[in-house]
């Protein structure tokens, strides 16, 4: 099958995924992954055609940028200590356990084990966010704490993916310098650039962001590194700008979700070998436990300390994973750090971790929304600044 024929088939699959997603109320990414698995295993489509690899790689960087841009900096500041503690433990526990298990128990190479650690340490901010919005908990203190902790875990994953696998060469200082220039420069020039050239159908503001992300990918490639960390931080520093200019963010999302990310998730699914998964169900269970056991074992005590009433709910939501787990696994596959069987097992664990903890949290541990809103109102009443007294004789 040549490039055009494959593109036509995948375009049909992408369309089908959108329709199924709307009908079932399940995220399009999960449907695309699933249909990718079906297409790859039933029709043996080539998931490694250069154009598909390129589009999927760029999509992963755009997804990472969007993930950074979707963080609310004010929410993060509110319970900084608790967010950082839970978020870091949520990353470090499964990272170390999955790494040690893959290396010591399963006999994977050190670099493959580190990919396993990175892919299984993630927490899905988006999966968590959907649960919190659906139940109305996103505006409560517990909701904000969980989202902030997810952000810390995502950040740690981005750091790990960028730092662990880099093999510094002469290009590394250039990569570092370009990253810093982009991160410092883009938020500064964005207001001028967007007001001068924005709000046109030709979308110069999206092209600017894409150009910067492409430059980061180029220098990261030259430095034998990964652009995921600068892309995430770049999104983060642009978050405030996008809060003030929602339409620009929505347009960027439209381009990303209409054309780029479907091919990322489809390609992820197409590389999953169902035969390898079914032949290694024991390993699958071990890897699933390597993610869930340390998440639950380490987050629960902290959650009991910071949110005693909803410790189990918090712990389960922090045990989810999807986008960053997929990004990490696909990076490992593209860089030939892991083989197709290892990739298949990691993606399956990532998808299971999106579904199982979420379903359990929603079904059995969902907090009382009314009580949480009341608590949030009472909290904000107590911290509301008091009006300054009006000086006597100056009150007219």
């Amino acid at each position: 099958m040549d490039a055009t024929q494959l593109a036509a088939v995948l375009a049909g699959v992408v369309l089908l995924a959108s329709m199924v997603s709307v009908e079932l109320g399940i995220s399009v990414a999960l449907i695309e992954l699933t249909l990718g698995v079906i297409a790859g295993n039933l029709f043996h489509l080539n998931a490694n055609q250069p154009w598909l690899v390129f589009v999927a790689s760029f999509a992963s960087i755009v997804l990472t940028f969007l993930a950074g841009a979707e963080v609310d900096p004010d929410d993060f500041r509110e319970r900084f200590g608790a967010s950082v503690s839970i978020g870091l433990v949520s990353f470090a526990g499964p990272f170390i356990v999955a790494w040690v298990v893959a290396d010591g128990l399963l006999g994977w190479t050190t670099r493959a084990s580190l990919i396993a650690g990175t892919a299984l340490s993630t927490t899905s901010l988006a999966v968590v966010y959907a649960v919190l919005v659906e139940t109305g908990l996103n505006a409560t203190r517990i909701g904000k704490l969980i989202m902030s902790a997810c952000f810390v875990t995502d950040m740690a994953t981005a750091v790990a993916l960028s730092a662990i696998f880099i093999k510094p060469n002469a290009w590394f200082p250039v990569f570092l310098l370009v990253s810093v220039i982009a991160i410092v420069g883009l938020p500064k020039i964005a207001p001028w650039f967007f007001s001068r050239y924005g709000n046109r159908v030709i979308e110069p503001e999206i092209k600017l962001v894409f150009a910067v992300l492409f430059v980061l990918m180029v220098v990261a490639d030259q430095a034998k590194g990964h652009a995921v960390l600068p892309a995430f931080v770049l999104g983060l520093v642009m978050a405030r700008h996008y809060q003030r200019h929602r339409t620009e963010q929505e347009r960027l999302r439209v381009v990303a979700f209409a054309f780029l990310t479907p091919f990322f998730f489809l390609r992820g699914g197409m590389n999953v070998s169902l035969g390898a998964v079914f032949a290694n169900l024991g390993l699958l269970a071990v890897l699933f436990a390597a993610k869930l056991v340390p998440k639950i074992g380490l987050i629960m005590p902290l959650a009991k300390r910071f949110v005693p009433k909803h410790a189990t709910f918090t712990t389960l939501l922090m045990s989810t994973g999807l986008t960053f787990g997929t990004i990490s696994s696909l990076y490992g596959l593209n860089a030939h750090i892991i083989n197709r069987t290892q990739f298949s097992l990691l993606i399956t664990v990532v998808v299971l971790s999106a579904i199982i903890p979420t379903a359990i949290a929603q079904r059995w541990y969902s907090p009382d929304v009314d009580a949480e809103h009341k608590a949030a109102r009472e909290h904000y009443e107590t911290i509301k600044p008091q009006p300054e007294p009006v000086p006597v004789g100056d009150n007219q």
Partner: protein
Amino acid sequence: MTPYNFTSVLVAVDGSDGSRKALDCALSIAQAVGAAVTALAVEGKLPAYAASVGEVDEVKHEKDQFFNDVLEHAKDEAYERGIEIDTDLVPGHAAEVITHYAKAHGHDLIVVGHRGHFLGDYLLGSTADRVTHHAHCPVMVVR
């Protein structure tokens, strides 16, 4: 309380044909017995297991707009018939929210349409089925 002495009617609305008939019926009952009436829209089913916050935000925004229009329509209907109506939009799972809301706000009759919008209703049983099983008060399912 006799079966015909309802004082506070809760009607679930979601913009479907069934819910329009339920609203019509609830307003008629309220008019006949002088009961207060509340139209409740439940905003559920955001994309489960989303890959990006944007995907969730977009669907949430669409749902907000859609359900606010549905509630505005309920107000217009009630206004045309000279009936006062309260409206509320609550996130969550439809059957769970409707039964919980009815109990918490002291409604003594729940009126729901026979079939909602979603494919899941066909596969898992309708919201009306689940409300009739879990409600604390009489439930009228309108066809």
